[in-house]
């Protein structure tokens, strides 16, 4: 999975237009960033990147780049 694919799938989860999301986009400003979206991102990172994310790591994420950092070592180019 590439970074762009991750952002596209994340956009689907939070109900946003992927083109409008950048690494600097603040998660708190996304209407769809709620507890259900949390779970979906956990599953996305585990399923597609094989990384089990702890609750603290996800809850401390503030912007899209923090989510990308969680899967950093496993993204394909």
């Amino acid at each position, binding site marked *: 999975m590439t970074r762009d694919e991750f952002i596209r799938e994340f956009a689907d989860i939070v109900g946003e237009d992927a083109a409008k999301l950048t690494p600097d986009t603040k998660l708190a400003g996304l209407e769809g960033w*709620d*507890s259900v979206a*949390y779970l979906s991102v956990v*599953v996305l990172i*585990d*399923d597609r990147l094989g990384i*089990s*994310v702890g*609750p603290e790591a996800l*809850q401390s994420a503030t912007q899209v780049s923090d989510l990308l950092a969680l899967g950093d070592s496993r993204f394909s180019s």
Partner: protein
Amino acid sequence: MSTVITAIEYTLGSESLPQETLEARFGKEAMDKVLKASGIRHRQVAPAGICGSDMAQESAERLLQSTGFNRSRIDLLIFCTQSPDYFLPTTACLLQDKLGLEKGCAAFDLNLGCSQYVYALGVAHSMIASGLAQHALVLTGDTMTRTLSPTDRSVVPLLGDAGSATLLRASHGAGFLGFEFGTDGSGAKHLMIPAGGFREPHSAETSIARTDAEGNTRTRENLYMNGLAVFQFAVRVAPEIVRKLLVKLSLSMEDINLFLFHQANHYMIDYIVRKLKIPPEKTHFHLDDIGNTSGTSMPVVLKEAVRAGKIKPGALVMLVVFGVGLSWAGTVIRWPDDSGGAAA
């Protein structure tokens, strides 16, 4: 010697809590999201005045009626609950009397939540296999919905109330092949009712409702769940239980005919099933119309899987449970044939 389940009955809370009621409380959009993630579209909850033990008792009476089993032969009663009738005495003692069981019957409560059923099966099995008991009645019953703040969207849409009864006896063939148990008390904070016990007794302070960052309002006497932490715990531990049981019993995934998981929510179980590459037909669900009924969810889905014809005589069935504690357990059962008297 092993132990077989010879019958299961369950009783749901008699009051409906439909989606429309919660849409009016939390908004349609919010409830649509919860429905998509949980698969739960309806709940059955216990009306005021009904305790978990009442639903367990009703289940036991129906079981004794339908099987014709002589209640005087029951010499072990285990009642699993986290919503007992009283702080003391132990609710199982009250149930021994209400069910008219012999005074020679051992009776005690087992205080665990979603993992309770497999723990109780393990205790009953070990007591029967060692000759300490002959016939065990394992009861479950909880009214967890009564511990919820009605305005807490993180838990109200998910939970229901129920009770169950399971009868067990010794067997020389089929039955439990093995168990796996586990505990991580460091995760206790993720799923708890902080106040109202002896560590933090009820006070004016513990009754004050506060609103969290997600907009859910509750007091310290209400059930609190960190949904994300519990989800991550469950999707990590459930596959571990499966793998450990298979190794312990020298079995492969293909050997197991049916995998049943604690009916927490659809999204979680779907994910666990996908992670373990279990074909959809080798599991079973029964929560969409009743909610997560805590420890009773496993006897409910086991009974329903039997009813759906998914458990044939001789089949290997794996039960996997996990929840508050944090606590988890699993077992593999070789389902008895008809001569084993296991018509659940």
